[in-house]
């Protein structure tokens, strides 16, 4: 680990007392304690991961019900997280001299939190990951990008921001596998492992306290329940966004702007001094170095470049990072992409901006429509809100209490708060809330960690400082455990929606294979695996993805409702599966019992005939009445 050499290379006593790493100061303990920590740290890591490994065969994911994976995880899984947390806290005590252990614990936590489904599930986790798999498969089938093809359901957007899909298409071929399904459940682990060093770099820019760095990384992982790190463009674009941010914060400091922020006496004991200023020429070179990263962000995802521009604009509010040239280059790259490759969706979005602008409550709601329903989804929703509030509360305390740290880390605070006004612009298909939260999380986790770690262990001997340290000794483990407890329902509480048995997906695949080219697939929502299979040949209509009152109207006579809206002469097939049932109920798109009613009424209608029926789903074909004088409208 490079940092280890860095710390080890500093001979004891070379740093001035007020500059020594607080973590180092914290470990000036008797030698016997030190040796105990030496063996305890790896032992707890091995034990924690061992318990996690032992929990896997005991996890009965196939019988998930109301609470998703949450009540299927065995007690030994929960014990593994407790042991890892304890080990991490022990490892923190030597974070300055042995950073390899906190980093190993952070990687271990990532695995324990998110690798379970990758190991266990015999199917894709998240139906929308299956959509991305379909995009890659289609791309490999056609061998080219068709950004202006105007496919059903805005699917051409994936060819307009194709960077993630082309990369995965290349990986699929290079690995020699059939599709991304062979590895897509591992995406959170790979993206997490790439992200951790970037976060460390970001935090290290603002603090010299390694305990603060690793605690912030730990909190970030616990608070990252939003599930945006699956096999999706936004996961990779997010990593690149933070990379650009880290490079800017470290290499784009304007000369003469640091002021007292290089004066140790004016800084929080844990704070790092402002990075050295760079000349105009160095910053120009920096823009050139960053250009491929910024271009890649634009090639991969449509929203992240907007976030990047907003964040860079917010940084321009500080004297330190007023880099208008970089902002202009970033904006121009985004505009160039939007007006060429992304032109169709860009213009369409511009057209709808007038409607969505200023609709704050509408834009900040989670999901498309409806309310979370059922014990698992409701618990997941409540846990998610509580988690977000807890992190923001802790961060707020640090911002108010550690004002010197806030002053020196103000750019990080600004970068995290900058995306919030985007609520006023667009709802991004019900996703804006999650995206704003995710982009605000790095700064929130940093300040939350600062609230939990005393300003400078050993630096002040006052009574108040001692009290703060004692409080922190209790608060840190307590908050980490509470956040862990919150992560689990928020991340796993809805897994009954996210896991679909392979037999059910095979039914969907068969159904779509039967639809002739140009035909129409109907389903309640698009959130089921294989929904977008052959999306370049078959149109689709997710007829329940609308407001609940309209769905209630539809339920009165679903067959007539659908038939009246089908284009004449279309070969239309309806696919209703167990996963759709769970999803429409959990997301509140249909009232209780609505899905069964829909299924029964369609099945009984002479307008539809059953093509295939299984315990986990039914396929119906539309049979238009031959004697209708006017035909369907």
């Amino acid at each position, binding site marked *: 680990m490079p940092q280890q050499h860095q710390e080890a290379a500093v001979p004891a006593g070379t740093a001035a007392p007020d500059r020594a790493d607080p973590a180092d100061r914290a470990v000036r303990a008797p030698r016997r304690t030190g040796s105990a920590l030496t063996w305890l740290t790896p032992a707890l890591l091995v034990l924690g991961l061992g318990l996690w490994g032992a929990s896997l065969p005991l996890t009965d994911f196939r019988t998930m019900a109301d609470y998703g994976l949450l009540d299927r995880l065995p007690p030994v899984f929960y014990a593994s997280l407790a042991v890892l947390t304890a080990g991490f806290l022990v490892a923190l005590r030597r974070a300055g001299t042995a950073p390899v252990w906190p980093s190993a614990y952070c990687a271990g936590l990532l695995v324990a939190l998110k690798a379970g489904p990758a190991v266990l599930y015999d199917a894709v986790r998240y139906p929308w990951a299956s959509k991305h798999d379909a995009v890659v498969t289609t791309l490999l089938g056609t061998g080219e990008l068709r950004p202006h093809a105007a496919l059903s359901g805005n699917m051409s957007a994936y060819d307009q921001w194709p960077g993630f899909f*082309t*990369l995965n298409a*290349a990986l699929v071929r290079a690995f020699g596998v059939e599709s991304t399904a062979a590895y897509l459940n591992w995406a959170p682990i790979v993206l997490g492992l790439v992200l951790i060093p970037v976060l460390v*770099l970001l935090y290290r820019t603002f603090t010299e306290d390694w305990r603060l760095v690793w605690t912030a990384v730990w909190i970030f992982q616990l608070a990252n329940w939003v599930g945006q790190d699956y096999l999706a463009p936004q996961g990779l674009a997010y990593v690149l966004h933070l990379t650009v941010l880290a490079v800017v914060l470290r290499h784009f400091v304007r000369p003469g702007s640091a002021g007292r922020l290089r004066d140790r006496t004016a800084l929080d004991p844990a704070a790092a001094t402002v990075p050295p200023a760079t000349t105009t020429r160095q910053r120009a070179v920096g823009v050139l170095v960053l250009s491929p990263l910024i271009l890649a962000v634009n090639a991969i995802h449509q929203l992240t470049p907007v976030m990047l521009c907003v964040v860079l604009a917010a940084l321009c509010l500080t004297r330190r990072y007023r880099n208008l040239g970089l902002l202009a280059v970033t904006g121009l790259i985004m505009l160039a992409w939007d007006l060429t490759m992304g032109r169709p969706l860009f213009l369409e979005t511009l057209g709808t901006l007038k409607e969505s602008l200023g609709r704050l409550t509408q834009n900040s709601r989670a999901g498309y429509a409806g309310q979370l329903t059922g014990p698992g989804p409701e618990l997941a929703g409540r846990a998610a809100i509580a988690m977000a509030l807890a992190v923001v509360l802790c961060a707020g305390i640090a911002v108010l209490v550690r004002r010197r740290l806030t002053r020196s880390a103000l750019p990080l605070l600004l970068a995290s708060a900058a995306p919030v006004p985007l609520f006023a612009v667009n709802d991004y298909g019900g996703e804006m809330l999650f995206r704003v939260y995710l982009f605000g999380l790095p700064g929130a986790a940093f300040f939350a960690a600062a609230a939990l770690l005393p300003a400078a262990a050993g630096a002040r001997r006052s009574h108040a400082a001692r009290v703060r340290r004692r409080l922190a000794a209790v608060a840190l483990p307590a908050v980490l455990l509470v956040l862990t407890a919150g992560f689990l329902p928020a991340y796993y509480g809805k897994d009954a929606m996210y896991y679909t048995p392979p037999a059910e997906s095979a039914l969907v695949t068969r159904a779509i294979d039967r639809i002739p080219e140009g035909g129409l697939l109907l389903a309640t929502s698009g959130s089921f695996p294989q929904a977008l299979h052959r999306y370049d040949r078959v149109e689709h209509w997710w007829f329940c993805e609308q407001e609940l009152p309209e769905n209630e109207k539809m339920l009165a006579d679903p067959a007539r409702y659908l038939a009246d809206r089908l284009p004449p002469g279309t070969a239309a097939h309806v696919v209703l599966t167990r996963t759709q049932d769970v999803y429409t109920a959990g997301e509140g798109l249909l009232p209780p019992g609505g899905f069964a009613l829909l299924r029964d009424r369609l099945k009984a209608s002479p307008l539809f005939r059953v093509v295939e029926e299984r315990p986990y789903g039914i396929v119906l074909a539309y049979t238009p009445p031959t004697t209708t004088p006017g035909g369907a409208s």
Partner: protein
Amino acid sequence: MTTHRTPARTSPARRAARAAVAASGWLALAATLLPDGSVPRWPPVLLFVCLGPGLALLHPQPRGLRPGARLESFALAAPLSLALASLAATVLFLLGAFSVPAFLVPLAAFTTVAALLPGLPLPAATRGAAGPARERG
């Protein structure tokens, strides 16, 4: 700011690491000759695509990396590599010219050339802006 005094002469270990990075793309390409779906194809391809170009661009500094800059090079290598791989694949699909060799050969050649040249001139790579200034000299 003091001048870094590490000798310019590269150590055998550093030369070996540089050679490994330079060869990583060709090794990944060779791995794709193995039968489809065989597990040994995965590690060289994944490691090269995720790390190869970035390491080649950031690491070979004429005087070696300053301690504070090691973290930076380590952290930036993967995002930079993935960005370049993503752009390369996008260009190939835009041209309708994608194939595994068309994807890996340019990246491997780029990595080899970059590994032989000095690293990107990020200021921190040469003057330790990555953390507390602990220069000796």
